[in-house]
């Protein structure tokens, strides 16, 4: 087996070390992934755009700069992908929507800028649910994504393309976004590690907004260590995002090897109640016991308002999206209908043709919730309940260091199974949404497979800005287990 054939089995650190010790070049690493994308993407549909030429040009440049010693950082020479809602300068940025199918972004998102400056190589843009609205990657205007573990199943969503990309090793790392579970649920369905940091930890500048008060970007990769390395590059204050937080960024890799002995893990009883698939529950229990065996203390906690999280979310998120998506009006960029007969026709047809059904559904829900006479009953009430949900977590964190539980109630479901039942689809995010509403950091890491052979992910929730501790805990688990290194046989 030649070197190039095994590059995709390496971690970010492995790739970094390889290109810096001259074992292989950045170009070889880039080509290895580009070749895999060419080979496997038709089956998975995980990428909307592959930036082969610009990736190779970047690889040449970065090889040079590494050779001259200008680039030494942990991301230097490492290929990566981006969910297709991060604006990338000169690259088509579609949000998986017909509305933006021809939109070439004139600028880089904050995180794209950071990864570029750190010497990463952009391989392409990942498929997703249209405008990040969906939990199965079936709402994409560019076709659904298939789960590498079973191509008749969905990969989850909205960062489904990214999760499939990592599961099949079509990139060593990608950035996703999470509004109500869009990193954690697909990570769980695809046996990868993904973290949604605390709201405000990473700048949202250049991330096409779905629900501004909830959207947060985060890395998706095989391991917690890969996520930590990425977070080191992209976290921190950005003056272009007023909601980004001015707190020092720790070295997320520094404490990965700390012991978890004495760690107090809270299990919310509401997350282990009716609705949780028995098989998923069994895998979760087994992992909890592993933590216990390593010296963690397990406690039951309660999040009494968590059953209200899904309804609250489906008021707040659509309300914000109904306003955020108003800029897609056919006037300055994006889809414009043919021969509009007047201004209203231009607006109505451009938006009717440009947006898919789920996006339209949420715009309508949100518009209704904000309307005069309904605002107090819906939006205002939802914000009040949101505070209660946050207070539940604050109370729980008085007794425990972290909270664990399932990321999703089930393993990956069949393509088409929930497509026509929005409520069933919305309930997919039962366990992830409360965390998003509270603005807390949440992550998923692989903990094994259910009897149906599909992966199960553990959700780990930390207190505000406790990402380093969370990554440490997941990393420790990944030292005892090898779930996270497993790849479906056909993509090995």
């Amino acid at each position, binding site marked *: 087996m030649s070197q190039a054939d095994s590059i995709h089995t390496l971690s970010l650190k492995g790739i970094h070390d390889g290109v810096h010790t001259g074992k292989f070049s950045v170009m070889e690493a880039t080509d290895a992934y580009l070749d895999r994308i060419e080979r496997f993407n038709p089956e998975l549909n995980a990428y909307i755009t592959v930036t082969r030429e610009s990736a190779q040009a970047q690889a040449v440049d970065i090889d040079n700069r590494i050779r001259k010693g200008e680039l030494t950082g942990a991301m230097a020479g490492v290929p990566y992908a981006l969910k297709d809602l991060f604006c990338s300068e000169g690259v088509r940025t579609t949000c998986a929507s017909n509305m933006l199918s021809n939109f070439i972004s004139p600028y880089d998102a904050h995180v794209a800028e950071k990864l570029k400056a750190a010497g990463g190589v952009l391989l392409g843009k990942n498929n997703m649910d249209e405008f990040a609205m969906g939990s199965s990657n079936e709402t994409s205007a560019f076709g659904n994504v298939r789960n590498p573990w079973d191509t008749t199943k969905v990969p989850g969503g909205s960062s489904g393309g990214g999760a499939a990309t990592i599961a099949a090793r079509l990139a060593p790392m990608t950035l996703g976004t999470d509004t109500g579970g869009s990193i954690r649920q697909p990570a769980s369905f695809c046996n990868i590690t993904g973290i949604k940091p605390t709201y405000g930890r990473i700048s949202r500048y250049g991330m096409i907004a779905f629900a*501004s008060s909830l959207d947060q970007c985060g890395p998706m990769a095989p391991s917690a260590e890969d996520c930590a390395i990425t977070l080191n590059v992209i976290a921190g204050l950005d003056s272009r995002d007023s909601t980004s937080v001015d707190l020092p960024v720790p070295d997320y890799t520094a404490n990965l090897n700390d012991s978890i002995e004495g760690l107090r893990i809270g299990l919310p009883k509401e997350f282990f109640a009716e609705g949780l698939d028995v098989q998923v529950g069994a895998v979760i229990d087994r992992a909890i016991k592993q933590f216990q065996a390593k010296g963690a203390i397990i406690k039951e906690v309660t999040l009494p308002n968590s059953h209200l999280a899904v309804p609250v979310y489906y008021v707040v998120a659509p309300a914000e999206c109904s306003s955020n998506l108003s800029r897609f009006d056919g006037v300055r960029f994006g889809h414009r209908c043919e021969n509009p007969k007047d201004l209203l026709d231009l607006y109505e047809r451009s938006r009717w043709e440009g947006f898919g059904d789920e996006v339209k559904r949420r715009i309508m829900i949100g*518009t209704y919730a904000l309307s005069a006479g309904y605002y107090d009953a819906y939006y205002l009430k939802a914000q009040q309940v949101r505070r209660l949900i946050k207070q539940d977590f604050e109370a729980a964190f008085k007794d425990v260091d972290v909270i664990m539980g399932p990321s999703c109630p089930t393993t990956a479901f069949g393509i088409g199974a929930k497509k026509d039942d929005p409520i069933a689809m919305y309930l997919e995010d039962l366990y992830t949404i409360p965390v998003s509403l509270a603005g807390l950091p949440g992550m998923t890491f692989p903990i094994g497979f259910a009897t149906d052979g599909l992966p199960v992910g553990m959700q780990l929730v930390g207190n505000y800005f406790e990402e380093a501790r969370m990554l440490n805990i997941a990393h420790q688990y990944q030292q005892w287990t090898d779930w996270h290194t497993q790849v479906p046989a056909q993509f090995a």
Partner: protein
Amino acid sequence: MEWETVIGLEIHAQLATNSKIFSGSSTAYGAEPNTQANLVDLGMPGVLPVLNKKAVELAIRLGLAIDADIAPRSIFARKNYFYPDSPKGYQISQYELPIVANGHMDIQLENGDTKRIGITRAHLEEDAGKSLHEDFQGQTGIDLNRAGTPLLEIVSEPDMRNAKEAVAYMKKLHALVRYLGVGDGNMQEGSFRCDANVSVRRPGAEFGTRAEIKNLNSFKFIERAINHEVERQIDIIESGGKVVQETRLYDPDKDETRSMRSKEDANDYRYFPDPDLLPVEITPADIEAVRATLPELPDAKKQRFMVEYALSAYDASLLTLSREVADYFEAVAQGCGDAKLAANWVNGEVSKTLADNEMEIAAIPVSSAALVELLKRIQDNTVSNKIARDVFAAMWNGEGSADAIIDKKGLKQITDTSAIEAVIDEIIAKNPGQVAEYRSGKDKLFGFFVGQAMKASKGKANPNTLNDILKQKLEG
């Protein structure tokens, strides 16, 4: 039967910041279309607003000057509506918690009374762009240079009872905005715009249904537009109709208002707090820091001028209409040591010449020091007040300093009694008839002799000396 008019004004004052309220683009007026519109102003996917702190400071400044409450926490909200020159599909404004609330301003009525006008609130918001309907053959061009320009919308209580009060309020607020450096108040460029809410009622009755008149961008238009609107409403009611709540646009060319949209067509703006912006937190220390930089306010300055310079209320209020005029006056008054003389000149010749030349005092060609030099020549009897006006005109035209012009044109007053006596002797000799009439009791003819003597001396005779000698000679 009698009708009472009720007026409230909403004034949009553009704030004097260099960059926009949520982006770094320049706010300078008159650039080529879309050259001052960056990614944020264009509402590109993924961009975010960042609040310009200077705009907050200017809002506090105005709030303090109208004795208002400055909110310790105010919220930006999105006002959602579709229009091509509104690039995001919403305007960022303030709705439930404005930065400034509960202020007031006193206006001077024509009869000399003072009236207090309540100011409900003042909130920060961004301006829209401009739709250009000409030059595009049936299509519309969009210029987003103005999009995102910071505005302070200042909303009054419905406290005004006629168009003249509305104009007085608007003028006073305009002066205040400029005084404080909160905005340049340039009405031609749209930096100070007014919408008027107008209704009529029987005195003592409930408020009538109001119409909002938009686009009132001059003091002249606002008075006319309100008066027209009042007549229109009275006509409707007196002929048995009902006023409908609606928005009307004033057309200055046709001098009429016409309906834009009725209440039924009004947008539901679906206001909600903008999740991209944090609440604006203002501490008492922030407020004190702004207060420390406040200039003396017009009303306080007027009082001081009346006391310190012994000026009439009328003179003092004219002199304090703008900070620049007040500063100019004070420099002249202190320079020449005679405040009344300085006030007469600044309110008289100076303001008249500025008005004739459609010029602001900032651009005046005669500096306060130059005017002081001229006034000193009046005080030391070198020239008369009348001659001084000619000298002033020459100074305005750049012909040199007061002394140089007096010298060059030989305008120095004649105080030499023998020279004046000679002129008077000649006039008495030439006009024996008039002399006889005067001496027989026709006192009024004294003016005739003064005029003749002045004319003969080309206006240079010292008027006091001339009067004395003339009186002596005629009576002697």
